């Protein structure tokens, strides 16, 4: 089966900066694919390479089997939802949505009908006559989505589309995007720096750092079995354990990762486990995050709300199941 998007050794350099560095990537048709990474990690440049706003310095890109290098954005069957939405302020909402069909020469009644349908799809029926300036942030985002979907793209690219929305709205949009993607069956490629967003929405996640892909896998893979220290730390702020520490518990001299929620915190000194001291507590609502110091090693533990907590500075004992200690591929 041909990939929706395929990168072979793709690099994009800006002067001496390697924004994207020899990336290999295959996105399966119909999947919800997230590109996750800190700012400057190359994820947005990858998205722009797919859209055609950037051309690779080396390597080759194909979209549904067709070579994409040198093909301008307006000849790709790919549409983008921009971070700032990029709606046209001089056009009505309906004309914004119908824009793609208008430049392709679709007749007025036909394209307006299609635009109305796209607006219904994003639950904004009857908003066509308004100007983008009269809409709220969440509504503008839906218009941007409708404007891209009306062209029936093979791949929909979303560049941090939820970044500008407040928390509640963002959670609603996450669910809505996910069900929209299921219903339409279009390949979604989604760029985000929010690991929670990537894990909850995507079928597969690629974690970017320094222009390279650190790991590609299902959200569960990435979360439970990080391959490198960077992935363990960036996705879910796992405790990264040095080889010396890991050797004591697993017998293998490798870097390890231990989820904060896998650590049990017992009060009092002595007994089986890792001796540590409580540095600070951070109340998060449903859970409480504890910062601990185990003989110079800084660890985090997450305990459910309502657990009796030690006071700051108190000596504690940390225990965990051996199988929760994940050994990473990264060499010691």
């Amino acid at each position, binding site marked *: 089966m041909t990939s929706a998007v395929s990168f072979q050794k793709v690099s994009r350099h800006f002067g001496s900066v390697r924004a994207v560095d020899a990336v290999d990537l295959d996105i399966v048709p119909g999947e919800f694919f997230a590109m996750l990474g800190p700012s400057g990690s190359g994820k947005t440049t990858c998205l722009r390479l797919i859209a*055609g706003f950037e051309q690779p310095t080396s390597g080759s890109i194909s979209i549904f089997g067709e070579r994409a290098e040198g093909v301008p954005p307006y000849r790709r069957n790919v549409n983008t939802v921009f971070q700032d939405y990029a709606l046209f302020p001089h056009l009505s909402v309906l004309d914004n949505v119908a*824009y793609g069909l208008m430049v392709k020469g679709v007749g007025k009644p036909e394209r307006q009908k299609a635009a109305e349908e796209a607006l219904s799809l994003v639950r904004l029926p009857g908003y066509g006559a308004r100007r983008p*300036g009269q809409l709220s942030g969440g509504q503008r985002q839906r218009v941007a989505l409708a*404007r891209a979907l009306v062209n029936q793209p093979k791949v929909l690219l979303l560049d941090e589309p939820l970044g500008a929305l407040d928390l509640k709205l963002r959670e609603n949009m996450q669910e809505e995007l996910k069900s929209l993607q299921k219903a339409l069956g279009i390949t979604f490629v989604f760029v985000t720096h929010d690991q929670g967003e990537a894990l909850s929405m995507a079928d597969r996640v690629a974690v970017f750092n320094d222009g390279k892909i650190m790991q590609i896998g299902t959200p569960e893979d990435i979360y439970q079995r990080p391959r490198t220290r960077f992935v363990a730390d960036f996705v879910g702020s796992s405790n990264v354990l040095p080889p010396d520490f890991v050797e004591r518990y697993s017998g293998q001299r490798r870097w390890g990762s231990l989820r904060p929620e896998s650590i049990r915190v017992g009060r009092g000194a002595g007994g089986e486990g890792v001796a540590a001291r409580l540095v600070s507590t951070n109340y998060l609502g449903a859970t409480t995050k504890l910062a601990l110091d185990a003989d110079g090693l800084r660890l985090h533990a997450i305990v459910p709300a309502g657990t009796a907590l030690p006071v700051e500075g108190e000596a504690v004992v940390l225990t965990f199941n051996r199988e929760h200690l994940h050994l990473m591929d990264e060499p010691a």
Partner: protein
Amino acid sequence: MRSDRGQSAPRSLKAAAACGLLFLHLPLLLIFVYAFTTEEKSFVWPPPGLTTQWFAVTWNRPDVWQALSLSVRVAAISTAIALILGTLCSAAVSRTRFFGRETISLLVILPIALPGIITGIALRSAFSLADIPFSFWTIVLGHATFCVVVVYNNAVARFRRTSGSMIEASMDLGADGFQTFRHVVLPNIATALLAGGMLAFALSFDEVIVTTFTAGQQQTLPIWMLEELIRPRQRPVTNVVAMVVVLVTLLPILAAYYLTRDGDQIAGSGK
């Protein structure tokens, strides 16, 4: 400041404002009055008598028509050149980064910062050096140097306010370069170009200094007026021309004012 809205300003401030406006506009009325005077050799106040004969005299003087048509043609062509070059230059400076970008931006603005007499002398020596005979086109070139600046300034400010990803969005939705310019770029900068174009036209229309250096035998309207003031015959003809010019230019200026005002409301709403 907001809280002062609706409250009346003190009477003294109103009086001062009225005096200021009168000081600015009374001389214009004076010009209008002298267009009707019966005294043709000098301007005396009050006019010894009123007549409308100067309108007929003006209408029948070919030199008036020549000067007027030359000025309109020069202003129209300079403005057209300025609209094209100013838009292209502002697009390059605000949309891309390249070596010497700041320098180009400064050099474009320079002609309006320099005294006109320097621009004039520089152009005159350059034309002589290059053996270019003074003609209609040398006047146009001289005017275009400062007309480009006003269009450029207006367009660059507008480009800065419009989101760069809009152009990418248009390309993404299938529009090629020309379609993007036609459907996205142009509508967004149109009012800025209109305002810049009107200003360029007005600047060119009443330009004297650069024109004296770059014109051959031709007389543009302002130069014709200057010459006319020295002659002791049929003086009110100048006033008739001035009055007609004021009235004719007022209409497009009012139109531009209303057009750009509405445009800004649309562009600015929701911010």
